[in-house]
Structure formats: C-alpha cells, structure tokens
C-alpha cells in the first residue's frame, strides 16, 4: 500500500518533470528571441554595455554554482576573471605584432624578447583553450590544497580574497611583463576581425549572450543531476558526506573549478568588449562586487545571479557617473540590507506570498505549519552556509 503512495507521488513528479522540460524549451526560445531582438532596439554603444554586463553575468553564474549551491563563498573570482582576461589580452596583443616584435610598454622597459608565457598564447587555439583551462587549473590546484585539508567557510573566503589581492599586487609589481597598473589595452582586432567594425561588435555581443545561455544551461543540468544533490549535500553536511562514501573535496573542487572557468571566459570576453584589462578590474573590491548581482538575484536560484548582475551593472552605469558618491552608498547598502534582511535576494520573493498569507490571512492548519517549518529549515541552512 505504501508502495502505491510512492508510485503515486512518483508519477506526479514525472508529470512535473514533463512540464519542467516544456518550460525550459519555452525559456530558451524566449531568451534566444530576446538575444536577437537586442541589437535591433539598442544602439551600438548600449549593446557594448550589455556585452560588458554579460561578461560579469558569466562570472555570476559560476558564483551561483560555487556559493549558492556549493556554499563556497569565493571572494576571489577576480583572479580567474583576470587570468582569462590576461590570456585573451596577451593573445590579442600578439595578433597585432609581427614576429620578434614586443608590445610598446615592454619596449619602453627595454625588453626585446617576449616572455615565455606570452609566446605560449600566440596560437589562437591555445589562447581560446587557455582562457578556460588556466583559471580552471589554478582553481583546481587551490581547491585540492584548500578543500583537501578540510579548510572551508570563512577560512576559504579569506584565502580566496588574499589570493586575488596578491595576484593584483603581483600584476602591478611585474609591470615589465604585464603592463603594470595600466594593464593591457588598445586592441584593434579579435581573431582577425576588426574590433572597430559595428558588425563585429554585434558578433561579440552574440558570443557573450550565447555563452551566458550555455553556462546557465550547464548549471541547470548539474543542478538537476545527481551531482546537484551531492553539491548541496557537501554544502550542508560536508563531514557527513564522507561517511556516505564521498570525497567532499573532489565535489567542491569540481564546482569551484567550473566557476573559475566561467569567470575566466567572462574575463576573456571582457577584453574585446571593453578594450582594456588592468589590475583595478580584478582587485579585492571588484572581486566582491562580482558577488553583488548574485546577492540581489538570489544566490540559490538558477537565473537570479544573471538577472541580478544585469540589473546592478545597468544601475551602476546609470548612476555611478552622475552620482558617484551616492552609487557607492547604494552598493554598500545593497550588501548590508539584502544580506542582513533578505539573504536569498529576489529569489526569496516567491516565499513572500506564503509569508503574507500566514501573517495576515491567519492561514491555519498544516500548510502554514509546514511553510513555517520549511522557513525554519531555510533559515537554519543559511546558518551553516
């Protein structure tokens, strides 16, 4: 008899799954339509801005996976963003130069031979692979060292912050080979395409948009798979997972490295979109600001990080030039108010209805109780995360 219940619920669930599948396709079609609509309604300048927001959205998708799902509060995504960006920037610089030539800033320092790590990324295939693999590999090494020894929570957050701080200082310090505080800029082409041509800018926008879409779908796939359960399990009961026969470190390394790759790809696209990458784009503060959109959109949701990032970056462009001081206050207050009072951001909005019903409707019975209990669980989760 009880088996019947399971099967009954099971079939409900599969019906839900059918709906889910259907919903995803609608979502994809609408998104693709929107992506193609944008160039028609936006000016070239606005499209460039949107492309920039999309680069940050790629980072945010990864943060959503690593932090929202996996509980790894990474304050150092700027490192991976920067690695991807510098790999791309080095390649684009080399595209412009003939063999044996060095970039202007190196010539100013009197360097005549390209450093080895520059030459490595001359090959476009190596560069394209490098923008994802270099950040991914460094994240994997860091993850194995850190997660492998059970270092987590605040310790991990602090280490990731220290690493990105050290990285940006190192970039400035090694100015002879990295361009220092000025970074790398003035790129004329992107794999042979003229960057000043609006058609090519539009193409870069499409690349960014479809990359974001692809990343969201990858994360969705992970969330729906058994791996998604494992990642949540490791977030909430890391040590317990060992006694269920898993190695939590490898699960965390996987999620963290994937997030790093997304950040690296975002950084790589940032270079042709914005035309400059410098240490000031990837320091400690920019790295934490990469979390802002995730905070607003809802760290545990699939789309929240993307929506939140697009919103906040849009707001930033609108406000920061006109009211720079006010914008910083807004940014600060976003972190303060959202995290303190609505830790799940816009993703929490759907909880508002049951809450209102319970508070004002006097909704008695088990439903209200269940909701309250579920709320308590969510709260308790936040505790451990």
């Amino acid at each position, binding site marked *: 008899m009880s*088996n019947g219940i*399971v099967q009954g619920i099971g079939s409900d669930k599969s019906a839900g799954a059918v709906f889910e599948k259907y919903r995803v396709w609608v979502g994809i079609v609408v998104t693709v339509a929107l992506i193609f609509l944008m160039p028609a309604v936006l000016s070239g300048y606005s499209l460039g801005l949107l492309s920039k927001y999309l680069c940050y959205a790629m980072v945010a998708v990864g943060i959503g996976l690593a932090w929202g799902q996996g509980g790894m509060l990474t304050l150092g995504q700027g490192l991976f963003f920067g690695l991807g960006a510098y790999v791309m920037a080095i390649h684009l610089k080399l595209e412009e130069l003939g063999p044996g030539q060095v970039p202007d800033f190196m010539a100013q320092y009197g360097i005549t031979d390209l450093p080895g790590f520059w030459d490595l990324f001359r090959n476009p295939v190596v560069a394209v692979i490098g923008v994802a693999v270099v950040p991914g590999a460094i994240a994997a090494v860091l993850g194995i060292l850190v997660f492998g020894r059970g270092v987590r929570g605040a310790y991990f957050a602090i280490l990731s912050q220290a690493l990105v701080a050290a990285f940006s200082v190192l970039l400035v310090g090694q100015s002879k080979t990295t361009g220092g505080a000025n970074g790398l800029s003035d790129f004329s082409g992107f794999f042979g395409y003229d960057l000043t041509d609006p058609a090519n800018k539009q193409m870069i926008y499409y690349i960014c948009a479809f990359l974001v879409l692809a990343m969201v779908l990858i994360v969705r796939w992970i969330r729906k*798979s*058994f791996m998604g359960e494992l990642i949540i399990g490791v977030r*909430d009961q890391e040590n*317990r*997972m*060992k*006694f269920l026969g898993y190695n939590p470190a490898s699960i965390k390394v996987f999620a963290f490295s994937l997030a790093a790759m997304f950040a690296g790809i975002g950084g790589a696209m940032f270079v042709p979109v914005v035309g400059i990458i410098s240490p000031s784009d990837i320091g400690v503060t920019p790295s934490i600001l990469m979390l802002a959109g995730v905070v607003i959109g809802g760290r545990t949701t699939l789309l929240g990080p993307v929506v939140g990032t697009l919103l906040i970056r849009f707001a930033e462009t609108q406000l920061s030039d006109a009211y720079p001081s006010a914008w910083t206050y807004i940014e600060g207050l976003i972190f303060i108010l959202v995290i303190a009072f609505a830790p799940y951001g816009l993703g929490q909005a759907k909880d508002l209805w049951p809450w209102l019903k319970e508070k004002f409707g006097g909704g008695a019975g088990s439903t209200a109780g269940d909701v309250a*209990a579920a709320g308590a669980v969510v709260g308790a989760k936040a505790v451990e995360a």
Partner: protein
Amino acid sequence: MSGTSRKEVSDVTEKNTAEKNTAEKNDISDAAQLRAEAQQLRDEARQMRDEVSRMKDEIVSERKRMQDLKDELSVLDDRGGQWSDYLEIQGLHVEFDGFVAVKDLNLTVQHGDLRFLIGPNGAGKTTIIDAITGLTPATGSAKFRGEQLLGRKPNDIVKLGVGRTFQTASVVEELSVLENLQLAEGFRKKTRDLFRPVRGVSQNIQYMMDVTGLTADAYKPAGILPHGKKQWLEIGMLLVQDAHLLLLDEPVAGMTPEERQQTGELLKRCSRNRTVIIVEHDMEFMRKFADSVTVLNQGEILAEGSVEEIQNNDEVVSIYLGGGEN
C-alpha cells in the same frame, strides 16, 4: 421471446374464440417455457457463483503472490550477511595530546549481534566509533570482514560496508527524504552517472523507506521531520548504503517512548543479518533490546556479556552508582 408469443396468442383469441383449445394448449406450453427459463436463470446464477468463488480463489492466490513478492523483497534486508562479517578490534589505542581516550582495547562483535557500548562520559565509547570510521587517528587494528579499517579515509571505510550515525542527526535538511536516501545509495555510482538526473525510486530505497516508516514523508524536506524520524532516516540511509556494520551513536536520545520502542524493533530487525553496535546512555532501552553489552570505563573494557550478566556485575554497579554517571 415468451412475451411476444403471449401477445400473438391474445391476438388470436380476439379474432377467433373457436380456437380456444389451441389457446389452452398454448398456455400449457407457455408454463413449460417459463420453467425452462427459470432453470436457465438458475444455471446462470450457479455459473456466476462459480465465477465469484473462482475470483475469490484468484484474489487469495494473488494476495499470496504479493506476500511472496514482499518476502522476496525482504530478502534485501538480509543481503550478503554471513557469519564471517564480524568486527574484530585488537589493541586499539587512541590518544589526544597525551590524553589516552582508548587504551589497548580488544573487542569482537559477531555477525548478527546487537551490541551496546555503555559507560560513563569520557569512557571512550564514541571515540571507538570515531576511530574505526576514520574520523580519529588510532593505532592497533580494527578489522571488518578481514579488512583493516584503521588508516583509511572515512569515505573508503564506507565502501567496506561500514556505516555510522552521529549524536546529532546529520541529514541534509534542504533535500527531501528520498534525496537523502539517494545520496546514501549513490556512492557506488560511476563518475559518468553523477551527471545524470536520478529518476524514479529504486526498489532498494522504496523497501527501506517502508522498513523505516518514511514512505509518506518521501518528498518532504528532511529538515522538517520530527527528531525521531530524522534518526530513522539516518538508519534508513545506513541500510540503503548497504552497510553491514552499523555504528549508531545514541540513536534514541530525545525520542518519545513509542519512538524508542519502534527504533529498538527496527534495530533488532537490522541486526538479524548485520553487525550492529550502539552507543547508548538509556539503560531501559539497552535492557530491552541488547543482545550483548560491553561496559567501558576510562578507555578500557570493564565488563562484557549479556544484559543479566552486566546487571549482576558488582564492578559495573559500583562504577555507575559511585562514578556519578549522568
């Protein structure tokens, strides 16, 4: 048929009364016809009765088949257990910064045993479990099915069929009961399968939910379960995990008397074909369900034996009365 003929008859009577005789004859044949009809109905009824009884038989046999299937399923409960699956601890020694928590301990727990570890606080009960599950480094030897457990990582020890619970129920509260059980079942998955969605409910999980009484809660988040059910979920996870050595740390702490009773029965059932070790403070619970008891004090074994033997052991009594156990 008969109705029509009667109507015909009356038509004829109206037309021609001279043919009355014929009509009477017709009446007689009518009666015979009715009798035959009744007979036919009786036959039909008998047939139906036969059919009903046949169906009844079928239901009975179907019920029996279901019972057989259930029994077949319950074989799951008894998977793989054999006499050689026993735990043998020799010279187990655990030290924390100079403090000896477990002192050269020898302990053997047979397959099919429900062993209770009791003793005052700090006796080293939980430390023993920690040591053989890889949480705490230890020296000596602890073998299950002939495999050395010490020196391995917790997740490798699980693969040898050793499962444990913790004093505080540690389930993944945000995931449903079913998903928690799937987590417990999934550690044998190949890497490739980790990236596939989990569809449906495996027979194993369905059965274990039945055993632990969690079927109705399958899709509830584990976090909203009452304390007792969380502990049952933990036990269910061990079963789904196919653990043959079950190590339970205070499984009934905080449970109601009824929940204790049910937990005890469940554990008794589990122990039929497994090796079960329970750390417990609840003496009542121990008296009811223990097959055998080991009393620890300051990292050493004080006494070992059946519940009666332990209860009549003067040394144990003095430790418990004089030592100020909780």
